[in-house]
């Protein structure tokens, strides 16, 4: 797979090519119109891009397994340092116990055990905490007249919220922030990423293990208590409790970062929509977040692995084949959305697939919505002259995440 940058740029199947990373909408939009179920020989996976196919695929979860990490024996891509191969096996064992890596029936009992904690109503009770955290972060940034949205707001906000959900005391926050940063390596491409990632995983296991014992003995209303109870009831093993606590920390971290950064950028690039939000920040923010999610989704694509041979559009997907389905392309499918390349914060209905669909529909969707609503509302209320400070924006080279590496803005 490794090749010189020149060769990589010339290969139309290179999903990491700079132009594909910079503008996935052109590349995957083209595939959606010309070859909607496309075999990519370079990455050795199917690329699925049409809205209708994406919804079909996730709905038939018994045909398309979520246990990709457990089932797929292909080496990591991009390659890792050869001496880190044992670390990769440890990461694989750890991640295989994630809720999202399980199929039914275990997935259903695991999901049921945590469902109550994440219902829209239960998450609504977190709105005031989110609002206070946004206020505090903007209070710190506002006097400077400028900020990197990523550093000042988008990265710290979700970690504050999630550590609060875990019941982490104030004095441990900094430590957890450090571990959360290490866990972000899960989606990176550097050859030495396994070392950083394992540091985060080991740190989480060490930190969370005694907390689970405490919550088993004396339950409270935090997320670790929910998992501790599920362990008592035999739904989760202890390892699964630890893994899924870590999952909560990283699943809600980079995704929320991207929602905030990509949404803010969409507003900066569409001043008419920014004015529309500013006219009624509290009222418009709910639909606006849905449009931010659709227009430039935090997650570009996600994976499945075929559990049996499946025919679709004249193609045969073989058992064991990997499949990547692109929300980034499905959300711009003209068969599903009128004028799909237009950013329209009043769009309704807006059945985007940015949280996935079907039984694996994002557990944290309600929380993400609340975080997005509170951020865009606060930005519109407080920083009315918000503008982009640099046109040199870069995205992390990921096939899965749509992650800006920084977003410098100013308002003074």
């Amino acid at each position, binding site marked *: 797979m490794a090749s010189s940058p020149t060769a990589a740029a010339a290969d139309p199947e290179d999903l990491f090519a700079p132009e594909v990373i910079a503008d996935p909408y052109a590349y995957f939009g083209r595939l959606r119109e010309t070859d909607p179920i496309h075999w990519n020989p370079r990455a050795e996976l199917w690329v699925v891009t049409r809205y209708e196919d994406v*919804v079909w695929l996730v*709905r*038939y979860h018994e045909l398309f397994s979520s246990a990709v990490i457990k089932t797929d024996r292909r080496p990591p891509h991009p390659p890792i340092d050869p001496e880190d191969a044992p670390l990769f096996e440890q990461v694989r064992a750890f991640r295989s116990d994630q809720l999202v890596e399980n199929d039914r029936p275990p997935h259903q009992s695991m999901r049921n055990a945590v*469902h109550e904690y994440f*219902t*829209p*109503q239960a998450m609504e009770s977190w709105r005031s905490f989110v609002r206070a955290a946004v206020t505090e972060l903007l209070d710190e940034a506002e006097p400077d007249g400028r900020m990197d949205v990523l550093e000042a707001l988008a990265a710290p906000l979700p970690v504050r919220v999630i550590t609060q959900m875990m019941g982490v005391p104030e004095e441990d926050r900094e430590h957890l922030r450090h571990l959360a940063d290490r866990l972000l390596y899960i989606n990176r491409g550097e050859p030495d990423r396994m070392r950083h990632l394992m540091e985060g995983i080991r740190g989480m296991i060490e930190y969370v293990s005694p907390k689970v014992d405490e919550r088993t003995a004396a339950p409270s209303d935090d997320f670790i208590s929910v998992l501790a109870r599920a362990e008592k009831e035999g739904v989760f093993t202890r390892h699964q409790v630890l893994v899924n606590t870590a999952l909560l920390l990283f699943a809600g971290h980079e995704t929320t970062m991207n929602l905030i950064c990509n949404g803010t950028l969409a507003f900066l690039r569409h001043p008419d929509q920014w004015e529309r939000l500013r006219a009624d920040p509290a009222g418009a923010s709910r639909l606006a977040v849905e449009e931010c999610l659709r227009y430039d989704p935090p997650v570009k694509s996600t994976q499945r692995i075929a559990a049996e041979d499946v025919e679709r559009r004249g193609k045969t997907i073989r058992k064991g084949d990997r499949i990547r389905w692109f929300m980034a392309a499905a959300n711009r499918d003209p068969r599903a959305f009128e004028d799909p390349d237009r950013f329209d914060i009043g769009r*309704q*209905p*807006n*059945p985007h*697939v940015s*949280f996935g*669909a*079907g*039984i694996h*529909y994002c557990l944290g*969707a*309600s929380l993400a919505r609340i975080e997005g609503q509170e951020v865009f509302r606060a930005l519109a209320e407080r920083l009315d002259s918000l503008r982009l400070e640099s046109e040199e924006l870069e995205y992390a080279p990921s096939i899965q995440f749509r992650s800006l590496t920084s977003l410098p803005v100013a308002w003074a």
Partner: protein
Amino acid sequence: MAREHRIALDHDLCMGNGQCILLAPGVFRHNENRQSEVTDPAAAPGETVLQAAIYCPTGAISVVDALTGEVLFP
């Protein structure tokens, strides 16, 4: 005369996420297309149904007037 309610589900919008089935398991279930369906459309729309309608990710659920089809909720 009091209005008759009906719980309606728009299958053009339903993505089959099953959020309504989790919120109101007695009222919604999956059909053979993996979309949600209403087990008893004439059932009184209780609090959990209203929750399901508010929070349906695609806005596929509503409570309508059984005679006129007018949307009463959300």
